[in-house]
C-alpha cells in the first residue's frame, strides 16, 4: 500500500514535469509563430493552455499525495510552505516555489481580462523560472533522480526546452529583422 502512494506521487511528479516541459515548449512555439501548412497556429496556442490546465491535476496529485502519505510524513505544511520540511529541505523547497509560480501564471492567465495585459505578461515571464526550479526539484528530491530512466526523462525535458528556447530566440529575431528590412527602426522623441 505504501508503495502505491509512493509510486503514485513520484509518477505524478514526473508527469507534471513532462507536462510543464511540453507547455513551455508550446508556449515558445506560439510566440515564435511556428507554423506548418495544414496545422492551424491556434492549435499550438490552445494546446499550450489546455495542457497547462491538465498539469494542475497531476501537480495536485503529486503534491497532495506526497504531503499526506503517512510514509513520507511530510505533512501539508511542508507542501504549502517552501523550505519548511526537514527532508531534503532545499530541493523540496524548490518544488514548492515552482508550484506557486505555476499557480500564479495559470491564475493570471485564467483571469487575463481582469488583471490586464501588462500584469498577465509580467507574471507569465515567471514560467521561465518555474521550469528550471521544477527540474532541480526533480533531480534533487526525486528518488528517481538517480536512476537511468529518471535521468533520461529529465534529460529529454532539458533538451526539449533548450531547443525550443534557441528556436524561439532565433525566430523572434528574424521577425524583428524582417520589420527592420522594410522600415529601419526609428525613435519618435527629441
Amino acid at each position, binding site marked *: 500500500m505504501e508503495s502505491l502512494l509512493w509510486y503514485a506521487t513520484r509518477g505524478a511528479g514526473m508527469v507534471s514535469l513532462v507536462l510543464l516541459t511540453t507547455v513551455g515548449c508550446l508556449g515558445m512555439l506560439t510566440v515564435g509563430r511556428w507554423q506548418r501548412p495544414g496545422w492551424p497556429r*491556434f492549435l499550438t496556442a490552445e494546446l499550450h493552455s489546455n495542457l497547462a490546465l491538465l498539469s494542475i491535476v497531476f501537480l495536485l496529485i503529486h503534491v497532495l499525495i506526497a504531503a499526506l502519505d503517512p510514509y513520507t510524513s511530510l505533512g501539508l505544511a511542508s507542501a504549502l510552505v517552501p523550505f519548511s520540511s526537514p527532508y531534503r529541505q532545499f530541493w523540496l523547497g524548490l518544488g514548492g516555489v515552482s508550484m506557486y509560480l505555476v499557480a500564479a501564471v495559470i491564475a493570471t492567465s485564467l483571469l487575463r481580462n481582469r488583471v490586464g495585459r501588462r500584469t*498577465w505578461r509580467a507574471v507569465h515571464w515567471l514560467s521561465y523560472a518555474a521550469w528550471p526550479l521544477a527540474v532541480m526539484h526533480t533531480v534533487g528530491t526525486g528518488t528517481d533522480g538517480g536512476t537511468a530512466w529518471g535521468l533520461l526523462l529529465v534529460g529529454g525535458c532539458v533538451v526539449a526546452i533548450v531547443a525550443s528556447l534557441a528556436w524561439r530566440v532565433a525566430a523572434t529575431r528574424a521577425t524583428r529583422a524582417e520589420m527592420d528590412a522594410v522600415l529601419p527602426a526609428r525613435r519618435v522623441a527629441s
Partner: protein
Amino acid sequence: MGERLAIDRIRCDGYGMCAEMFPEGIELDDWGYPILRAGTIPDRLLPLARRAVEVCPVLALRLVDTLIANRSAAGPAQTAGTAGIGSRTGSRT
C-alpha cells in the same frame, strides 16, 4: 444592437490566429495582419468571435457593442461639410 470586433492596432502583432478561429469575420492582409469585416456579428457566429478574442496572444481583440462603439468613434465634432477630411487627417484619433 449587436456586437462587433474592435482591434487595438498597436498591440496587434500579426499572429493571425484570430483569422484561423473566425474566418467568416476576419481575413489576413498580404502581411498577415487582420482585416475585420464590418458590421454586427451574426448571433450564430458570436462563439467563434469570442474564441478569436480569447486566442489572441497579445489581447488585441475585444468585442464591443455596435451602437456605443460607433458613437464614440465619430468623435465630438461631426464634419461640417468636410466629409473627405475628417476620416483621413492626422489630428483625429
